[in-house]
């Protein structure tokens, strides 16, 4: 913007706001007309919109100029050329629209992410037809997918990568599918309003106080006859771990100190308690809890979570982590 001289900046601003205003109105009209879509939606001919592109407008002007030239010279061969181009224009308009009609779209899920990361919404597009469809692209506000072709019968997942800022549910109000095929003379598109949602966990705090001390459950301690336990896995070396348990071979390979974990060994568990964090800001507390959970999960330690209204017994594993993080993501002080 800075390169535009000032008298025009305003004009450009007005023009662009006018443009976004009009297109927003059209979108709202389409939303009202179409209603919300089922989780699997087949595109009917009535909801595929089409307009010429810039190239298409230039192409049309060229064809018009050629028509005038042909008329002026009464040249029948250039009439042939002109009319072939006009015919190509008509055909590509219909080809472009037909390229979308009959496609089936469904939401294929989105992996939860931490706030600040991009939410990758997966939309499965299926071509239930005898012929390939070309140049498909999904888009939404702020994101564009790759351009892909769909072979007959093929189902492909297009990813819309939307940046996130806040924890909680994020909903894709609207996304579109569009194509410029065959000659980029026309752009055909369809808007979809499906229930496309993803969960955003709080952002792990960059600097967090040390987690509360680990409590060792002594009751679990039992040596077998050989005096050793079954090897269960590796975890990050903590100060105080027995040097006997350091995985020296792994250290030689990766340069990272790891301790061997043994089943039946001491199980240490931690309680992460919302109320015990000395901070006034709820979001910051959630952020700190997230950090602790992420770290604890990495070290394979058992941890429990206590937030107002919910409590998760110490455990570890994917399901536990998800449950805890979801509770943090959806934490609501009032209801909690």
């Amino acid at each position, binding site marked *: 913007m800075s390169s535009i001289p000032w008298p025009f900046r305003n004009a450009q601003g007005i023009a662009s706001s006018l443009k976004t205003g009009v297109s927003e109105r059209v979108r709202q009209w389409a939303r009202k007309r179409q209603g919300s879509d089922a989780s699997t939606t087949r595109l009917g001919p009535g909801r595929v919109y089409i307009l010429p592109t810039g190239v298409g407008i230039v192409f049309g002007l060229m064809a018009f100029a050629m028509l005038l030239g042909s*008329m*002026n010279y009464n040249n029948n061969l*250039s009439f042939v*050329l002109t009319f072939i181009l006009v015919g190509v224009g*008509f055909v590509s308009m219909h080809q472009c629209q037909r390229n979308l009609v009959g496609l089936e779209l469904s939401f294929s899920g989105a992996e939860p992410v931490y706030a600040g990361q991009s939410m990758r919404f997966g939309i499965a597009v299926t071509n239930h037809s005898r012929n390939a469809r070309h140049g498909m692209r999904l888009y939404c506000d702020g994101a564009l997918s790759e351009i892909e072709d769909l072979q007959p*019968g093929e189902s492909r997942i297009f990813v819309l990568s939307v940046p996130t800022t806040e924890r909680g549910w994020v909903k894709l109000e609207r996304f579109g599918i569009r194509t410029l095929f065959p000659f*980029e003379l026309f752009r055909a598109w369809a808007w979809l309003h499906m229930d496309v949602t993803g969960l955003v966990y709080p952002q792990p705090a960059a600097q967090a106080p040390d987690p509360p001390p680990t409590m060792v459950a002594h009751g679990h301690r039992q040596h077998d006859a050989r005096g050793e336990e079954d090897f269960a896995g590796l975890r990050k070396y903590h100060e105080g771990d027995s040097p006997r348990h350091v995985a020296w071979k792994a250290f030689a390979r990766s340069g990272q100190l790891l301790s061997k974990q043994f089943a039946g060994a001491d199980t240490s568990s931690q309680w992460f308690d919302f109320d015990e964090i000395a901070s006034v800001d709820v979001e910051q507390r959630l952020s700190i809890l997230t950090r602790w959970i992420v770290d604890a999960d990495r070290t394979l330690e058992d941890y429990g979570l206590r937030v107002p209204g919910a409590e998760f017994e110490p455990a570890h594993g994917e399901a536990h982590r998800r449950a805890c993080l979801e509770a943090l993501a959806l934490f609501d002080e009032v209801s909690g």
Partner: protein
Amino acid sequence: MARPRGTDGSLLASLPWTLGALGLSVAPHVPYLPAWITFAFFGCAVWRYLIEKRRRPLPSAWFRAALALACFLGVLITYSSISGVGPGSALLAVMASLKLLETRKRRDQFVLLFISIFLVMSSLLREQYLWSLPYMLGAVTVIMTAWLRMSASPIESAKQSFAIGGRLLLYAAPLALAMWIFFPRLATPFWAVPIDSSRATTGLSDTMSPGDISSLSLSNEVAFRVSFDNQIPDGPDRYWRGLVLTTFNGRSWTGREPAISTTARDQIVTTGDPISYEITLEPTRQQWVFALDMPVMWSLSKTFMGPQQQLARSLPIDQRVAYKAISHPEYRVEADLPEVYRNWYSNLPADSNQRSATLAREMRAAATSDQAFINAVLRKFNEEEYYYTLEPPPLGSNPVDRFLFDTRSGFCEHYASAFAVMMRSVGIPSRVVLGYQGGEINPLGGHLIVRQSDAHAWTEVWLEGVGWQRVDPTAAVAPERIDYGASGAALEGLGDAWGLSAPSELLHRLSLSIDALNAKWNEWILGYGPENQQNFMKWLGMDDPNWRKMMLTLIGVVVSLVMLISVLLMLRYRPPARDEASILYQRFVKKTGLEPIAGETAIEFGRRAKEADALPDDVIALITEAYVDARYGPYREPAFERLKVAVGSIS
């Protein structure tokens, strides 16, 4: 602002096609383009391709700007104008070369393809041969393929793009045809732009100076074609009147600029039967319009008859034109010629060609009448040692004297000039007519071909009570020239030169069949103008065709064709028929040898087939599952494919 100049080979999939499209569209211009532009274009094309292939950077902006300036100056200097087809196409070729050197992104190629289309268009304005149409269609196919290659996915092969482009063009073809037929043709252009002035013209010259040019070029180029409504007149009657030369200055004959005469047409009194025919005249860039002696009606617009019954158009004939005409081989013109005109038509410069004048006066004195004198002169040419040759010696000053008394050899111009001078010497009004004589009948097309080599000069003399009468002195010297025509003689000479007659005969036949095709091409495709269109509309059953009706028909036909195409496309994208799955499944049922029970599901039947050990268990399981999925599953098409393979494996 420094834009990135590096290339990464990402254009390799589309650039060869774009270059091919440009090459195809520049090629027809090459004969007309200055050599440096051709060289610059093909040089830039190869250079750009190598840059992409070796992933080198593009030339710098400074270099390109300097090159652009040099090229535009070059075009200006070469053509000294930038309007018209010649400089226009040169500019397009230059623009394409320059644009190539800054094409870095895929979308930059759009500009190149637009230029390509304009180049094809301008080549069509310049020449419309029989092969121009297939060539243009080929070029358009390549352009459209290049267009698709620009945005094609990297895994799509060029062959696939070509197939898609071809299919879309095939859909567009009936639309184009309908628009071509019904789009109303205008009789007059909006504005006149020179098509191309660089090409040399072949045609008749406006002056005749026998002896100045010592040989006549024997161009086999077609001057015009004629199709007669009824019978083709005999060789000696085929005199195609062009322009009339009335003034002799001792060396050259000149005529007047084309001018309208309001009385010329009325001076023709016809007897006998008319001959009606249609002439397709090749562009001459002159105003003269040719017709069989003596024309009384013609359909060409803006065409008038001059004072000496010559036809001319107010605009030069820049493009091929077709017109109908009616002529009377038997006619009488200007039976009464006023004294002043009689003197004017027998005017000779005082001090030239004295010997010829003296000879004429002596011969007139010996003859009883003007007609007897004319016959005596013709007899002299016929009986004395006068020769017909296309390569006579030059004549210098007093050419008529030198020709009549010394060289005694020449072609039509020499005889016509000498004859007219002799007539004028004794006060008989006379003039020279330039046109064509003869023509070759093409048995395949049923038309007459008149070539440049059929160009001819003859005389008209005015006799009391008879009016203007055609006299062809060449006929007295070389009757075969009149009987068989010039082109026949020329072709015979060609065969003799090769020492073979059979191949030349074969070649001649081949050239005749190409000519017949060309004639039809000119008549039906290139000559589809307002008149032909009206006739065609009437033939289609449209009464009183006008542009409004044609436009409405055009819209109607195009709309229905577009709907048809839409339906075709819908069918293209319909799901595979489910019945095909049933047919495949029935084949499997037959193979098991079991009788299906009414109401039994595929899964139940599969279980039964397994128990009966009709086929290996895994095959039964695979087919059953694929069939159920193909009919009821969410992803039917892949399941259908699996079913096809599985059933294929057991049968």
